[in-house]
Structure formats: C-alpha cells, structure tokens
C-alpha cells in the first residue's frame, strides 16, 4: 500500500511548493495532483482487480491486524473520482485562477488538503479516522467556498455551508455514539439490531448527517449557494466528489447491516424520487448557470439514492440480483456523475471566464467563438441527460434494470415509483440541458460580452476534453468498468460469493448497439457533407420580419416557462411585471425568480424568527463587568446551596 500512501502525500501536499514559488505554483500543484492520481489509481486498480487482497491494513493497531485505514473495493471505487477530479480541477485552475488572484496560493493549498482528506476518508474504517477525515474535508472545503471572501454573497454562502455541514457532523457523532455497542470499527452489526429502536435512530441520524452532505432534499439548501459562489474548478470537485462522500457514508453504513427493514429501502427510494424530481425542477427555473448545475447535483444524488434504495429493498426481501443491480447502478452513477458534472462545471468556468457573467440571459452564440468548450459541454449535457452512447446512460440503465426486476417481486409499488420517477427525471433533465446548451452556446450573442468571448487556453481545454473522453469511453465500452464495478457493488451490497453482474446486465450488447449508432451517424454525416454545395450566409427564416435582432430570440426563462408554470405549486416563482397596455407600449420590465424552497422559504424565516425570539436573552448580556461578576457570585452561591442540601 505504498502506492496509496504516496498518492495521499502527493495530493495533500500539492499546494505546498506553490507557497514558496514566485510563479508556476499552479503547474507544480497540477503535476503533483496528476502524479498522485496515477499512483492512487494504480492502488485502486489493484484492489478492484483482485490482484491485491481486498482488505489491506495500513496502520496496524497493537491489538490486532485491523487498522484505522483499509482500502477495500468500495473505497477503491470511490477513490477514482476523488483523485481524477482534483487533478483535472488543478490543471484547469492554472489558466482559470492564476497567480493574479490574491487567493491563488491559498486556494491551491486548500484544494490539495481537501482532496487529501477525501483520500483518507474513502479508506477510513474506524469511526475516529472517518470523523477526523470528514471534519478535515468539511472545514477545508469551507475555505474553498469562501475563496472570494470580499463578496458578501460568497461569505453568506460559506456561512450557510459551514453551519449545515456542522449540523450534519453532529448527527454523525450521535449516530456513531449509538453504534458504540458494536464497536467503532466498521464491522457488521448483529442481525436484529437494525429493526430495534436503536437501529432506527442510528439509521435516521446517519441519513440526516450523510444526507446533509450529499444534498438530499430537503437537506440540500446549502448546496446551490455554495456551488455558485466557489470558483468553478472548486465547484467541479465539490459537486463531483465532495458531496459523494455523503453517499460513501450511506453505503458504508448500509453494507454493515445484514437485515435492513423494508421501510429503509422504501424511504431511500422515496427520498430519491423527491430529490431527483425537485432537483431538476428547481434547476429548470434558474438563470444562474452554476446554481442550475448545483441543482442538477441534487437531481443526480436522487438518482443514486433510487439505486441504493432498490438495492436495499433487494436486501430486505432477499433478492440478490436486485441488490447487485441497485448498488452497481448507484456506484457507477457516483463515478459517472463525478465525471460529467466535473466536466460541466469546468465548462461553466470556461464560459464565466470568457464572458464574466453567470447569467444565462446574457449568453448566446458561444459555440462559434468557443468551439472546444461547446463540444465538451455538449458531451457533458448529453451524458447527464442519460442519453446513449455516453456514460450517464449506462448507470441509469442499471438502475432501470433493478427497478424492472423489482416489479416481479412483492412490494413492487416502490420499484414502479422509481421507474416513473427516473423516466420523468430523464425527460426534465433533457429539457433543462437543451435550455442551457441552447441558450449559452447557440443562437446569437445576447450581450456584448458574449459577442467578444474567446476560447479558453489549452490548460483549461485539456481537462475538459479528458473528462469528455472518459464519459464517451465508459458509455461505449462499459464492459471495461464491469468487473471492477461488480466487485465494488458486491461489497457494497454485502453479497458474498462471485457477483455475476455481467449475467444480469449485458454490457457487451450496449457496445454492440453503440457502434452501429455511431457508424450510422458517421455515414449520414458524410452523406450530408457530400451533397451539392450548400448556400451559407443567409439569415435564419424570420417569417418576413425585417428588423430582427438577437433580443427577440427565445430566452432561457421563456424556454422553461411552460414547465415552470406547470410546476408552480411547488416552485412558487416570484414574478413581477406590469400588464402591457395600449397599442404602442413603452418599456416594460419582467422579472422572475425562483427562491429555494427550503432555504429561502422555510429555514431563513424560521431561524430569523428564532433569533429574534432569543434576543430577549440579550438583557443578561449587558456588557458590564460588575454584572457578570454578580452572575458568577450567584452561581457559586447556588452551587454551595445545592451541595449543602
């Protein structure tokens, strides 16, 4: 396990040389993260191929061979995105967040530290190491979110993140405390414990603590502001891997339980359906590119939960094939979402870099000035909508398969709910990404900044292309990840014996379908290209209207309006406009905004009310020293009385 240790050191210390260098720190950090990623990927590959023993003790305790750190197949599978995304992000950061930013050095240092803590976290197999790595990751990520701390919006986002992550950790402390009877090592709990009140309380606390990090609805509220405020390559890492640590925790907790009650799986499926549909519904209504992507992370966490829930249902009802497919789909979606969401955030960073804005309504026509970014972003959009032949389809396909298999068994209402939810999420996501890609990259520029946009430098294009290539590779040749996935999924599902994932899901046939698809597309493309020379340079057909302008293009808001107003009972959009009167109306303004259901509608008002209510306690806090001395005296006297009595 020298490789794993090497990877950890290279990753965690990647920002340090940059502190002492006048320039070029970004390159050094990208190189170190890249090398660390290679070392760590080798370690993960050894574990996942079964070449190395599945459990390796890094630190041996005096009591036995079980240590605090152990790279098992689950951890090794999570290790892949944990290493790939920071490396891509750091390379992207060379051009995106160069030394001209005052926070560049600090950001590089903290990016490495956060990634290092995540590397530790995936291998932690003791409550102590787990919580240490968890808190380290959470706190260093706070500084990443608050990189641009001069901006009040960013400070607010960082503050919300810090409060919510600590609330989550509090739940985890309580949950680990309740588990103490079973020991702090991650060992299987005895049968029957899960159904007891203590098991129920532990499960709910874990769900709350890990759900807060993962962004399960309604605990997602910290996520959109934090992802929007952080620099894009940081958002890419946070959305791609950091929130997945919540999923890692859930998987770790679930794989210890041999007999989960039926309602656990049902609850996970229900939460997944709610997170998935509401996540994408809120995403549709956003105008801020990065907030929109953040809501899509909630959606994808929902999809992952659907897989986990179906797997858990299979475990409760004793159907190993359902168990394997559900967990395999969830784990593969963790990896896939890391790849394509990382790609999309980097693409968004490239757009923000070029136009200086995150507002969708000010974009347009970027595909001509930024062709590489546009192509990469299209690949990411294609993948996140789950369309073949990219990787998003493969993991959604596994979860669909799990749901279809679940139909044959008793309690088939939950699988059919998962099925309908997945279908609706897929259609909504396609709507949302058609909107994003269309409004940002296609059509005519809607602002002078968009018209003057320039393609990103090579160091920013390379990571995007690498991630897009990975999405295509997994999508076309899923059999390449099949064995590793089967091993990790079997471990996560708590299955013993060989896992025949290939027998349940024919990855080879997906390739056999993807190839004719690509071949047909290539042939047709060639046929179009070899026709009579096209006539170019004419305007788009405008129905004879002579004075066309980019401003009459369909906007992001109007594109989404049909769906947003159909879902207004849950989205509650705030729309302000004055009715247009007269034949020749003068200027009219129209504003629409969809505030977050939980943060803006529930949490802040109630917490504000609570704060005002508690303000009555201020009378005790007058700031006068004699008064405080008086309090101490009263306390002492009270204690004395109590002890004497």
């Amino acid at each position, binding site marked *: 396990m020298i490789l794993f240790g090497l990877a950890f050191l290279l990753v965690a210390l990647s920002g340090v040389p940059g502190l002492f260098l006048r320039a070029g720190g970004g390159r050094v950090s990208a190189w170190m993260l890249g090398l660390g990623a290679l070392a760590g990927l080798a370690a993960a590959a050894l574990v996942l191929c079964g070449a190395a023993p599945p459990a390796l003790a890094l630190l041996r305790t005096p009591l036995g061979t079980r240590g605090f750190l152990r790279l098992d197949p689950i951890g090794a599978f999570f290790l892949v995105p944990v290493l790939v995304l920071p490396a891509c992000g750091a390379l992207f950061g060379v051009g995106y967040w160069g030394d001209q930013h005052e926070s560049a050095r600090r950001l590089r240092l903290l990016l490495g530290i956060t990634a290092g803590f995540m590397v530790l976290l995936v291998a932690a197999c003791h409550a102590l190491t787990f919580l240490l790595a968890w808190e380290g990751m959470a706190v260093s990520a706070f500084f990443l979110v608050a990189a641009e701390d001069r901006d009040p919006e960013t400070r607010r986002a960082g503050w919300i993140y810090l409060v919510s992550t600590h609330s989550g950790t509090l739940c985890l402390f309580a949950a680990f405390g309740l588990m103490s009877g079973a020991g702090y090592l991650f060992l299987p709990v005895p049968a029957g414990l899960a159904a007891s009140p203590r098991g129920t309380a532990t499960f709910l606390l874990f769900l709350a603590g890990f759900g807060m990090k993962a962004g399960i609805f309604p605990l997602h509220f910290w996520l959109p502001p934090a992802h929007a405020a952080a620099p894009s390559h940081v958002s890419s890492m946070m959305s791609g891997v950091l929130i997945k640590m919540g999923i890692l925790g859930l998987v770790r907790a679930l794989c210890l339980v041999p007999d989960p009650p039926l309602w656990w799986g049902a609850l996970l499926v229900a939460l997944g359906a709610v997170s998935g549909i509401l996540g994408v519904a809120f995403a549709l209504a956003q105008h801020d590119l990065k907030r929109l992507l953040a809501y899509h992370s909630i959606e994808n966490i929902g999809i992952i939960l659907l897989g986990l829930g179906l797997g858990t249902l299979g475990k409760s009802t004793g159907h190993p094939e359902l168990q394997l497919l559900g967990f395999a789909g969830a784990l593969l979606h963790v990896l896939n979402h890391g790849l394509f969401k990382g790609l999309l955030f980097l693409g968004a960073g490239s757009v923000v870099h070029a136009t200086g804005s995150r507002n969708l309504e000010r974009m347009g026509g970027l595909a001509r000035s930024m062709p590489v970014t546009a192509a990469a972003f299209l690949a990411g959009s294609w993948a996140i909508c789950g369309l073949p032949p990219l990787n998003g389809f493969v993991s959604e396909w596994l979860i669909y398969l799990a749901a279809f298999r679940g139909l044959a068994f008793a309690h088939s209402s939950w699988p059919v709910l998962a099925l309908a939810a997945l279908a609706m999420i897929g259609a909504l996501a396609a*709507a949302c990404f058609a909107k994003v890609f269309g409004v940002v990259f296609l059509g005519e520029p809607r602002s002078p900044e968009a018209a003057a946009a320039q393609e990103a430098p090579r160091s920013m294009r390379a990571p995007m292309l690498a991630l897009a290539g990975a999405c295509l590779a997994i999508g076309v040749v899923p059999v390449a990840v099949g064995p590793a996935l089967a091993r990790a999924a079997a471990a996560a599902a708590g299955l013993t014996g060989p896992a025949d994932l290939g027998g349940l899901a024919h990855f080879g046939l997906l390739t056999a379908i993807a190839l004719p698809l690509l071949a047909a597309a290539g042939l047709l493309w060639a046929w179009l290209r070899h026709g009579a020379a096209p006539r170019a340079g004419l305007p788009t057909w405008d129905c004879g209207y002579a004075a066309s302008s980019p401003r009459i293009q369909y906007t992001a808001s109007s594109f989404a309006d049909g769906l947003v107003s159909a879902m207004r009972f849950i989205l509650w959009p705030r729309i302000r406009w004055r009715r247009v009167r007269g034949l020749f109306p003068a200027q009219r303004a129209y504003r629409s905004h969809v505030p977050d259901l939980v943060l803006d509608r529930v949490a802040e008002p109630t917490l504000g009310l609570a704060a005002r209510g508690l303000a009555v306690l201020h009378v005790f806090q007058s700031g006068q020293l004699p008064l405080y001395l008086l309090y101490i005296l009263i306390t002492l006297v009270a204690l004395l009385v109590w002890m004497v009595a």
Partner: protein
Amino acid sequence: MTDSTLVRSLHFLLHVLTALLLPPLLPGLINKVKALMAGRQGPPVLQLYYDLAKLARKRAVYSRTTTWVFLAGPVAVVAAGLTASLLVPFGHSPSPVSFQGDMILFAYLFGLARFATVVSALDTGSSFEGMGAAREVTFSVLTEPALFLGFAALAKATGSLSLSGMLASPGFAISRATGPLILVLAGWMIVFLTENSRIPVDDPNTHLELTMIHEVMVLDHSGRPFALVLYGASLKLLVLGALIVGPLLPRTSAPWLDWAGFYGAMALLAVVVGLVESATARFRLNRVPQFLVAGLLATAFAFFLLQA
C-alpha cells in the same frame, strides 16, 4: 443448423429492409386516407419517396447563425431511429438484437433524437423554433413516464425484460392481462400520436409557425438535412407503431404469415391515424397536457390492475 441460420439471416435481412424502405409509405397512406375522407383525390401514396429523392439532389441553405449542431439534429434522428429499429420486433418475428433491458435503450434512443432535434432548432436562434423546442420538451415530460409505465405493466404481465419478450408474447389471447393490455395500448396510442406530432396534439399540415411543435423546429432545414428530417419522422411512425401493433397480432403458424400480418397491421394503424386526423381537431396547446396525463394514467392503471 445451417437451415435455421439461413432463416434467421433472412429474417434479419427482411427486418433491416423493412426499417430502411417501408417508413415513407406510412405518411403517404395517412395523407391518402385524409384526402379521401375530405373528398379529395390527394397526393400519390408514394409521394414522400419522390420528395426524398428530390430533396437529396437539392442544395441546402444554412443560416449564418448556425453551427455544426444544426446538422447534428437530422443525423441523430435517423441514426437513433435506425438503431432503435434493430431492437423492436416487427410483429412476431424476433428483433435482430434483443437483451434484458433493451426497452430502456429503445426509449432513450428516442430521447436522444429529441434532444438533438431540440438543440438543432435552438441553433438557428429563431424564436419560433425556440417555441417549438420548448413545447416538445414540455410534452415529453409526460410521455416518457407513460411509455415506461406501459413497459412496467407488460414486464409484470409477461415476466420478460426485453422488447421481443414483452411484445411478441403469445399469452395475450384472453387472459387476466387483457384488460391491462388494452389500457397500455390506449396510453401508448396517445404517446404515439404525441411523439409523431399528429393531430390532436400537433398538426403536421399547419403552416402557422406559432402553433406548431415539430414542424416549427425544422423550419430552417432544407435539402439533404431536410430529407433526413422527413425520413426520420416516418421512421419514428414505423418503429413506435411496431410497439403498438406487436401485442395485438395473433400468432400464426408460418413466419411469412407473421410478416404479412405485421404489414397489414401497420397499414391499418396508418388508416386509423388518418381517420383520427380527419375526425378530430387539434387541441388548444394548454389542453394537451391533460390529454397526455390521460395516457399516463391509463398505463399506471394497467400496472396497478396487474399488481392487484
């Protein structure tokens, strides 16, 4: 052994030829039925073949706003349609490719075609095409779950997880599954009309940009790309139609009778679409979602009937 290989390859050949050559006939049939119902003579049944041949020779016109994405739409529609045609059984003849979960791929291939058409429409920067694109994605939010709930009901009824097993299953004669099957097919008929942009959801013949869905998204296409658009639309009629006629066909003794039955049923479906278009008017746009919800409910009921 060689005999069965020969038969299988003949089936495969016939399947591929059907998918490649038959589609343009279907819109011709529909239009002929509509014309006859209206007391007109109407265009020849083979009109779309002539149109395609003419368009293939014509020069295309590209707007200066567009990029390569503009062409990706028509290409993806036909490529996805042809690939999907490999997965669906035509009648009782097995599909060339069949595996567990192929119906998911089938549905997502149409999702792919839709996504590509929509971004291709947005590439022109035209507000009309933006409207069409927005309507298309809005309605798909209701048709996708209806399609999948139908698959769920059929999977429950047949115990099969592939299209060939679900659709070509002979167990539908008169059984417990008959009622749910009718509901599924009713729901899917709504999906079929919506996905193919037929009346009462969309009007393929209208020439008013503001009210169209599919036609308005392809306003700017011309020449060979437009030929692909038209061909892709007719291919969708065939492939989604095969989904509906498959479970209805009785199983015969000879494979060649199966094929004849399939062609007859597709022609009948085209006639039914033509009759529906002659007898009903297009819904107002804000009524369409209610129509789609009816389809969704029908398939959901079918599933719960089977579960009860």
